[in-house]
């Protein structure tokens, strides 16, 4: 059984087909890349998988459970996480609070325990803060711990977005342009961190990328979209030589 299976997925807004009859399967432990020219429907793919946008037709199954009609927070609870292209961080919480919010679904203390400061809540918070510190450390964010997220530069926010998404301990993490806005050095570092964490914790990755160097070195398999349709799928080497892909990009990235 594949981790994530899409069959004939179509997403339509008004008269526009953002995604047209796409089928694919992502396996456990895989790192899948999703590339395609601008407007190919890549972000819509992530939006429909995470339930933020309705699925007009087709089926999406996660661990053999149909999720195409499920509400977004339910899908997240099943184990799918994501980051955002334009980072949706909580700008008036501090960096550590952002990460702690990411952990929400795994914390053992609910409303009543928190309200009455029961031992379970105090222990839960302490454990959560320790885990948050570790994540901050992994993403080189410790120095920004108590800074309001809204005060930080974009590159740092991208790392925070990633750290927060990982805090939720997803089984499948969808990354929407994770390295955009980062310097070359920062991008490679972040991707290495993601790859290490993914391998160590058994998280599968599904990555939209424009940076060809990054995606070709990171992904096990790459799916290519153009005008909402899948035009190619295979190993990085195969994709680079695929005529349809080259045509779609008009030869712009043929030397990636």
């Amino acid at each position, binding site marked *: 059984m594949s981790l994530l299976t899409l069959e004939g997925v179509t997403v339509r807004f008004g008269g526009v087909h953002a995604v047209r009859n796409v089928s694919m399967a992502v396996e456990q432990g895989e790192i899948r890349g999703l590339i395609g020219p601008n407007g190919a429907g890549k972000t819509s793919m992530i939006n429909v998988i995470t339930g933020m946008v309705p699925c007009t037709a087709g089926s999406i199954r996660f661990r053999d459970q149909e999720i195409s009609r499920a509400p977004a927070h339910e899908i997240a609870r099943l184990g799918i996480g994501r980051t955002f292209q334009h980072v949706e961080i*909580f700008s008036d919480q501090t960096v550590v609070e952002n990460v702690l919010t990411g952990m929400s679904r795994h914390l053992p203390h609910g409303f009543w325990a*928190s309200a009455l400061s029961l031992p379970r809540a105090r222990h839960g918070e302490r454990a959560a803060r320790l885990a948050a510190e570790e994540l901050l450390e992994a993403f080189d964010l410790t120095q920004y711990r108590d800074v309001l997220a809204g005060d*930080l530069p974009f590159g740092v926010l991208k790392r925070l977005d990633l750290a927060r998404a990982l805090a939720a301990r997803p089984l499948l993490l969808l990354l929407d342009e994770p390295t955009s806005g980062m310097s070359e050095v920062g991008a490679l570092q972040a991707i290495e961190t993601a790859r290490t964490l993914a391998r160590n914790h058994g998280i599968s990755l599904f990555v939209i990328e424009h940076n060809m160097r990054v995606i070709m070195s990171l992904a096990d398999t790459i799916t290519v979209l153009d005008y909402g349709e899948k035009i190619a799928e295979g190993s990085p080497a195969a994709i680079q030589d695929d005529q349809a892909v080259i045509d779609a990009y008009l030869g712009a990235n043929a030397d990636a």
Partner: protein
Amino acid sequence: MRSMWTARLAWLLAIPLLAVLPLALDGYQIYIVTLVLVNVVVAVGLNLLTGNAGQISLCHASFMAIGAYTTTLLMTNLGVPFLVALPTGGVAAAVLGGVLALAAIRLSGFYLALATLGFLEVTQIAIEEFGWLTGGVRGLMAPRPTIVGGIDLGSDLHLYYAVLIVTLFLVWVAYNLLESPVGRAFNAVRVSAAAVQTLGVSPARTKLTAFALAAFYAGIGGGLAGILAGFIDPTEYGTAATLRHITFIVLGGIGSLVGSIVGATVLTLLPEVLRGAAEYGDLFYAALLLGSLILMPKGLVGLVSHWTRRGPVLSEDVTPAQDREPAR
């Protein structure tokens, strides 16, 4: 966390101070200070809903009214003891808060404000319509109860201590919630409901919790306000009251627990200080609200933290090169 020690210090100083305070005051002053405590409860509830969870609510006073009538009617008509009647009033208000949350789930901003305004009007109408129960426009007598052990809350001093205990408890609970997943969910939903969903948190459930919580606080506040005044006047729970409550949190500091306390305290004491200007009271309040909104958007608390902020947060030599914004 640096703020945790300031908080502990604040508790340590405040509690004995508040315990000893009334002994130095006369009867009327004790009434005023008790009123401050009641308003703190109301303000804290509203700030959790509007300041933290970001839900505009123009009907906080309605929840107070529900609490006031429920508590008093249970005591006078059914002989329910105060210790049961008060929380029941809070729960009754919370249930209606939950109902209103259904509107909040589908609406936001202006539309939510309108829905809450509609609810405010409906409660006013209901109070009149059920006049046989509520006393209608003429109001309802709210005699002070005796509680278990024969302690008579008819004494201003005893009532003060009872209200103090309730207030301290509810402020403590609010503080706990703010430093917990619940509080973080509130703040997150206000900024980005989309992101919060991807973390497994249901915005609908969060809004429901926020509304029910705020309504509960208002209900308790209402129950206490009723017996404090000895009388429930329905006109005290309309648009003028809404204005006051919102001014508490805007002046004090939106989203800040301390702000709620400061705002409620300052604005309850202010009319006492500016005695002669009773007529100008409402006008002054409205002008103060507008002024705070435009000139002091983070409230008094924001003003203080602005002055005490220690230099720039990110300076050139501290931020690593790869994290700096690329030059444009």
